[in-house]
């Protein structure tokens, strides 16, 4: 049976959740550009009535629009990578890039919950052969839990490392893990783990979740 058939509704819900967040971010980009364009129009109308235009102001507004276009481009690039993550069931991927994508896709969710995400985008590449979409789904549910379990620091640190048997991904600083750990992972997470042959380990002492992935990992 195809991987996506195995995870069924939860996979579609994950796709929907991420897509909704992306569309919300893009709406904000358009809203800011819209106001900048509107202000430019207002200033031009005032200039037609004899008020002088301030070139520095015009330049700042143009710069603001360019910044929003760059922001929108980053969001769309992430959306494109996310959409293509479902293309193939098994492909060699760089875990560093995948974690970077997860962070990008999750920034809005984190911000809404007052949580900061820390991830070193310059860390070493670690290649694994897996299903990118299902791994992203598994990592998202772990991050979702981690954001709930983040302690007073309200910061979740993400990292990846190569292991003898494959690779391991870490979600750290979970000082508030406590009782929430009793209900995680649940069946939806277990279904994802079965597809990936992955394993989630909660460690309240070191305040982290570790996701172990099977062999095929290598440093690039």
């Amino acid at each position: 049976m195809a991987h996506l058939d195995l995870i069924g509704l939860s996979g579609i819900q994950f796709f929907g959740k991420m897509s909704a967040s992306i569309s919300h971010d893009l709406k904000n980009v358009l809203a800011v550009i819209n106001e900048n364009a509107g202000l430019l129009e207002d200033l031009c109308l005032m200039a037609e009535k004899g008020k002088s235009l301030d070139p520095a102001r015009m330049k700042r507004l143009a710069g603001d629009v360019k910044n929003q276009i760059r922001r929108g481009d980053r969001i769309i690039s992430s959306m494109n990578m996310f959409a293509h993550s479902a293309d193939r069931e098994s492909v060699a991927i760089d875990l560093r890039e995948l974690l970077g994508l997860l962070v990008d896709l999750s920034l809005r969710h984190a911000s809404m919950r007052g949580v900061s995400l820390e991830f070193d985008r310059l860390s070493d590449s670690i290649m694994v052969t897996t299903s990118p979409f299902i791994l992203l789904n598994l990592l998202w549910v772990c991050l979702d839990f981690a954001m709930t379990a983040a302690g007073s620091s309200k910061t979740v640190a993400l990292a990846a490392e190569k292991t003898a048997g494959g690779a391991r991904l870490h979600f750290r600083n979970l000082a508030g893990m406590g009782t929430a750990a009793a209900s995680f992972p649940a069946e939806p997470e277990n279904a994802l783990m079965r597809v990936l042959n992955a394993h989630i380990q909660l460690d309240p002492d070191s305040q982290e979740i570790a996701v172990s992935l099977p062999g095929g990992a290598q440093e690039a």
Partner: protein
Amino acid sequence: MKVLLVDDEKELVATLAERLNLRGIEAQWATSAEAALSRLQTESFDMAVLDVKMPKMDGLLLKKQMQDRCPTMKFIFVTGHGSNQDFMAGASEVGSDYYLVKPLKIDDLIAKIREALQR
């Protein structure tokens, strides 16, 4: 007419406030629910225009808290939702009839502000 705009997109509220000011509506802005509540301690407003989705405290909860402090204040909600069904359900819970979808049309916003204040 004095309006407080609240949205975590700083550039959006700052620019929108400037455009309202150019049209003779005194508008000020805040980028968080906490900052908005703090402003209410020292200033009074006729109306608040609130983003629905904001970090820590959403617009619906913020409205309740602002209304406790200023019972006569009017509210307009702004949402980025493609579909308004969820938002409408939430808005009806807090009793707001006024909402707009991003990106905003300034004439629509001003019309809603006037309509709400005349009611």
